[in-house]
């Protein structure tokens, strides 16, 4: 294999890993800060992808569809937190798993009723729909680079939000001492609602970005959900930075697994997880 093939696989690994990071970062925050195991997180990825599909068909513009989709998923996240998740904070993990598993079934059923069970493609916007030639017969699609770029921007924005803004400080403060944050006048419940909605919206956004390369299809959230939990566990529960590193590791393990050991590609990711957990049972980055 020549170097350009490696380059393509590396770019694919990064793009896949970063997309996974968008989903997993919300999951790790919701799990780490609010203590909720949210199995329906993958459903938001699916919902995002289907919103990209139906809203871009409606508006004829993927970016407009994504903008509308983000607004809708934030609203949906807020409503769900208010109606359901806010009642789960003090409950057992088993109850959380039951409720959120129920939500997966409901969302899949709704998807089937509204959009049917067919696989749909989502067109790539014309100005991103070309490839950069690498060698005479190898080229790389610009839309995938675009996905990586957007994900990196969001990762940077999240970092600034959590580390530099007062809201980010309050989130971190509430994470270690909820009562103290409250008695300084911080409305922790409102902040949790916001974090929850943002986490859900990030998963939906990842689905929207991915839709043109992955198509939209029934059950598409499930695979992503499982991998996201792997990322959360490897990265260390509650660590956004850990999620980024872990997501990239998974991206590389999965992509290169498929290239070098195609027969075992399915288990490459889980072998990596087992190895890392044997080495560091709390994940790469322990919760701050």
């Amino acid at each position, binding site marked *: 294999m020549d170097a350009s093939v490696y380059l393509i696989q590396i770019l694919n690994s990064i793009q896949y890993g970063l997309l996974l990071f968008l989903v997993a970062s919300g999951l790790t925050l919701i799990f780490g800060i609010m203590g909720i195991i949210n199995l329906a997180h993958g459903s938001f990825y699916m919902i995002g992808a289907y919103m990209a599909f139906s809203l871009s068909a409606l508006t004829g513009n993927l970016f407009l569809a994504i903008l509308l989709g983000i607004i809708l998923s934030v609203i949906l996240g807020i409503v769900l937190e208010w109606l359901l998740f806010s009642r789960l904070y003090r409950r057992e993990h088993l109850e959380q798993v039951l409720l959120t598993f129920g939500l997966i079934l409901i969302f899949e059923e709704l998807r089937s009723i509204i959009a049917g069970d067919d696989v749909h493609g989502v067109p790539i916007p014309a100005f991103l729909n070309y490839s950069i030639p690498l060698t005479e017969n190898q080229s790389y699609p610009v839309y995938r680079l675009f996905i990586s770029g957007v994900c990196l921007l969001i990762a940077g924005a999240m970092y600034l939000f959590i580390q530099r803004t*007062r809201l980010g*400080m309050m989130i*971190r403060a509430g994470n270690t001492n909820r009562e103290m*944050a409250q*008695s*300084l*006048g911080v*409305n922790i419940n409102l902040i949790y609602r916001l974090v929850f909605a943002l986490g859900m919206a990030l998963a939906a956004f990842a689905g929207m970005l991915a839709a043109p390369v992955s198509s939209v299809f029934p059950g598409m959230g499930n695979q992503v959900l499982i991998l996201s939990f792997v990322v959360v566990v490897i990265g260390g529960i509650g660590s956004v930075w850990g999620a980024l590193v872990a997501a990239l590791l998974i991206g590389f393990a999965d992509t290169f697994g498929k290239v070098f050991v195609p027969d075992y590609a399915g288990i490459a990711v889980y072998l990596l997880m087992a190895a890392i957990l044997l080495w560091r049972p709390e994940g790469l980055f322990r919760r*701050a």
Partner: protein
Amino acid sequence: MSEVLLEARGLHTYYGASHILRGIDFTVRGGETIGLMGRNGMGKTTLIRSLLRLVPSRHGELHVRGRAMTDAPPHAVARRGIAYVPEGRGIFPNLSVRENLVMAARPSVDGKRHWTLERILATFPRLAERLHHGGAQLSGGEQQMLTIGRALMTNPDLLILDEATEGLAPLIAVEIWRIIRQIRESGIATVIVDKNHSAVTAITDRNVILVKGSIVFEGPSTELRSRSDILHKHLGV
């Protein structure tokens, strides 16, 4: 007389089945300095936590600046101008000194910012030196200064200090008392819990003694100092 900042009537608080507060009436007026006393386990912390709505009371009423807050969440009570320096300090170890202060910043109830980051750092020069250290890296005294500074960043009208000098070296404790006096002189009402009774009565206007969740004495410092029977019986002095 100045405005009533906080008024509790007939508070009863339980931890599970144990009845801790047994009908407490407690009032704080603007600018007042109150000593809250009693031996260990008599319910001082529980009373404070009930006033701040950090623990629910089963009976009784709570008004903060005239507004009923009997069922209010803790952040709402805080936002009516009450700040808290808890037992054991409660700094955020994962935030830097600066972040601990900045996250709490808020104008007072009447919209003024008397206490800014600059003023806090001028009041606590040691914090200025350690602005970018993590909260967990501070010494006990520095942590206490940070907790007090952080409470002041909310520009409160009432500051409640629960054992603020506990476990500190004597020289550091003196420094903390100096700061508490300074806060009191700036016009902020204070409720002070401290084992050092003479230091408390030296600066308080009024004192309340708790025994097993009931108030057994309430009166001015001059009166309390002359009542050696009470000091001996309820405080072991």
